[in-house]
C-alpha cells in the first residue's frame, strides 16, 4: 500500500512543482493525439459522408472494411506501419521510423475508421429528406455537406470523443513505431509501461494521473460542446 500512496504523493508533487519532464511527456502525448485526431477528422468525415451519401459498386464492402477498421487492435496497426516505415520497407527512405510523425501516422490509422464509421452511421440515420430539403434550399454540393455535418454534430462529437479516447490511451502502436525514446518519442502511455517495468511505481502513477486528467478534461470540454449542440437540435 505504501508505494501506491507514495505514487499519488509523487504525482501531486510532479504536477504542482511543474516538473518539466512530466509536462514534456504530457504535451507530446497531446500533440500526437490531437494531430492524429485532426487528420482523421479532415479525411474521415468527408470519407464517411461520401460513402453514406453516394452509391457505387463495392460500397457495402467498403462499409464492412471501415467497420472492421474500427475494431482492429492497435498493435496490428503498429506492426503494419512499422513494416512500411522500416528502413528496408516500402517507405523506409522517408526515415520516419521512431519519430513523432510515425506515431501520428499509426494513430491516424487507428482513429480514421472510427471517425469515418461513426460519421457514416450518423449520416445514414439522418432522414434522406433532410438532404433533399437542403439541396432544394439552393445549396450546392459543398454547402449541402456542411449543413448535413451541422445536423449530425452531436453524434459527430461522440465520434471525436471515441477517436480521441482510442488514441490518447493507445500504447502498442506508438511503442512499436515510436520506440519510446526518452525526450523524443516517449508519451504518457509508453512512459507508464517503462516505469512499471523498472519498478518506478510512483512515477508510473504520476504519469497515469496526468493521463487521466488530460483525458477527462478534453472529454469534458467536448461533452459540453456536444450537449450544447443537442439542445439546439430539433
Amino acid at each position, binding site marked *: 500500500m505504501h508505494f501506491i500512496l507514495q505514487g499519488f504523493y509523487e504525482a501531486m508533487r510532479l504536477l504542482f512543482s511543474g516538473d518539466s519532464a512530466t509536462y514534456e511527456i504530457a504535451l507530446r502525448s497531446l500533440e500526437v493525439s490531437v494531430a492524429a485526431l485532426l487528420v482523421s477528422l479532415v479525411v474521415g468525415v468527408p470519407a464517411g459522408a461520401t460513402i453514406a451519401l453516394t452509391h457505387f459498386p463495392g460500397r457495402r464492402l467498403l462499409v464492412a472494411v471501415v467497420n472492421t477498421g474500427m475494431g482492429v487492435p492497435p498493435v496490428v496497426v503498429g506492426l503494419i506501419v512499422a513494416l512500411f516505415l522500416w528502413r528496408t520497407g516500402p517507405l523506409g527512405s522517408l526515415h520516419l521510423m521512431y519519430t513523432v510523425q510515425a506515431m501520428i501516422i499509426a494513430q491516424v490509422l487507428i482513429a480514421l475508421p472510427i471517425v469515418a464509421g461513426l460519421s457514416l452511421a450518423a449520416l445514414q440515420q439522418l*432522414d434522406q*429528406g*433532410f438532404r*433533399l*430539403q*437542403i*439541396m*432544394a*434550399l*439552393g*445549396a*450546392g454540393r459543398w*454547402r449541402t455537406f456542411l*449543413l448535413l455535418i*451541422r*445536423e449530425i*454534430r452531436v453524434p459527430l462529437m461522440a465520434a471525436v470523443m471515441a477517436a480521441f479516447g482510442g488514441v490518447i490511451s493507445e500504447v502498442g502502436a506508438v511503442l512499436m513505431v515510436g520506440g519510446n525514446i526518452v525526450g523524443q518519442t516517449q508519451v504518457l502511455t509508453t512512459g507508464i509501461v517503462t516505469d512499471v517495468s523498472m519498478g518506478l511505481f510512483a512515477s508510473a502513477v504520476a504519469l497515469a494521473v496526468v493521463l487521466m486528467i488530460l483525458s477527462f478534461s478534453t472529454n469534458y470540454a467536448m461533452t459540453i460542446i456536444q450537449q450544447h*449542440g443537442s*439542445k*439546439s*437540435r*430539433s
Partner: protein
Amino acid sequence: MTGPVILEGRKLSVVRGGHTLVRVERFALEQGEVRVLLGPNGAGKTTLMRALNGLEKADGEIVFEGRPVRSGGDRLRLRRRTSAVFQQAYLLATTVRGNVESGLRLRGVRGDELRRRADAALEMLAIQHLAGRRPTGLSGGEAQRVSIARALAVDPAVVFLDEPMASLDPPTRRSLLADLEAIFRRLSTAVLWVTHDTEEALAVADRVTFLAEGKVVQEGATTEVFNNPATQVVADYLGLDVWLEGRVEEAAGGSARFVLDDGASLICAETASGPAVACIHPDDVMLFLTKPDSRGTSLRNVLEATVRDVRAAGRSRLVTLDWQGHRIEALLTRAACEELAVTPAMTVFAAIKATAIQVLPRSGGSNDDA
C-alpha cells in the same frame, strides 16, 4: 391568373431498378398557376416533382424560364430560383428566424434585406411570434408553417409542395390550407402541389394533372377534371365508384340510351355510341318515397329501387340502393334521411338527370390500382 410557361418537361422518364417510375410526354407549368399533381400512392407524383426541380435525374428535357436544364450547374440554378416544401418540415438546428433566412443566405442575401424578407415571410405565415424559438417544441403545424415561410421568403419562381399537409391533424390542416389558398391567390408564384387528397386539390388548384402508374392520365381545369373524369381510373379515384357496364345506343337529339349488359336502360346525355361504362355520383341522385311525376321536369330517369344499406358518410348519409340488381348510391343530408325514414328493405324512387350520368368509353382495364 396564369401566364407563359415557366417550367416544362418534355419526354421525361425516370427509371429506377429497371422499373419505369415516370414517363410523361409533356408537362408544362404556367407562371402564377396553382397546379395539383393528383393521383394514388405510387403514381409517380413525387418522382415527377423531384425530376422537375432538379432533385432527381431524369431522361428527357427540362426547360426552365426558357433555358434548358442539362448540367449540374443548370439544376442548381433551377433550385435557386425555386423552393420546396416536403411532408416533413425538415427544419435546421437553428432558430425559426434562422430557418426562414437559410434559403436567402444560400442565395447571398445579407443585412437589412435579409431581415426584411424574413420578416415578411414570417408575417405572411403568421408566425412572427415564433421567430426566436428553436424547432424543438414547435407543433407539427407550426413547423410546417416555418418550412413554408422559408420556401416563400426567397420569392421563388416556382414553389414545389410535396404533400405538405399529410402529417397534420384535420383542424391544423384546414387552417393552413385556408391560409395557403389566400397566399397563393395573392402571389404570382407558380405552385406545383403534390397530393393524393381530392379535397386539397379542390381547395387550391387552378388546374389538375392526374397521374397513374407514372403517366399523365388527365389534365385540365380543376372543375373539368372533377366533373368530367376522362377514364375509369380517374373517376374511381374521385369517388365515382358506382359503375354500370353497357353500351350507348340511339344517340340523337342531345340524349342517348345507355343499355346495360342485362337489358336495363338509362337516359344519358348524347355521347358516342359503343361499349361504355356509366357512373353516377351519389350527389346527383334524389330519393322519393312515391314515384315522382317527371313530366315537365328535367328528370329523365326515375328508377324504382330497394334500399340495401344506410351509413354515415361524414355529416351526410350514404344510401345504397339495389336497382334491378345494380348498385346505385345516393348521398342525403342527415335531416333528409330522417325525414324520409330511409331504412333497409324499403322501396324508394331514385331520380337522376340525364346529364348527371357520366358515360366513359369502356377501357377494359381494371381500376383496382386507383
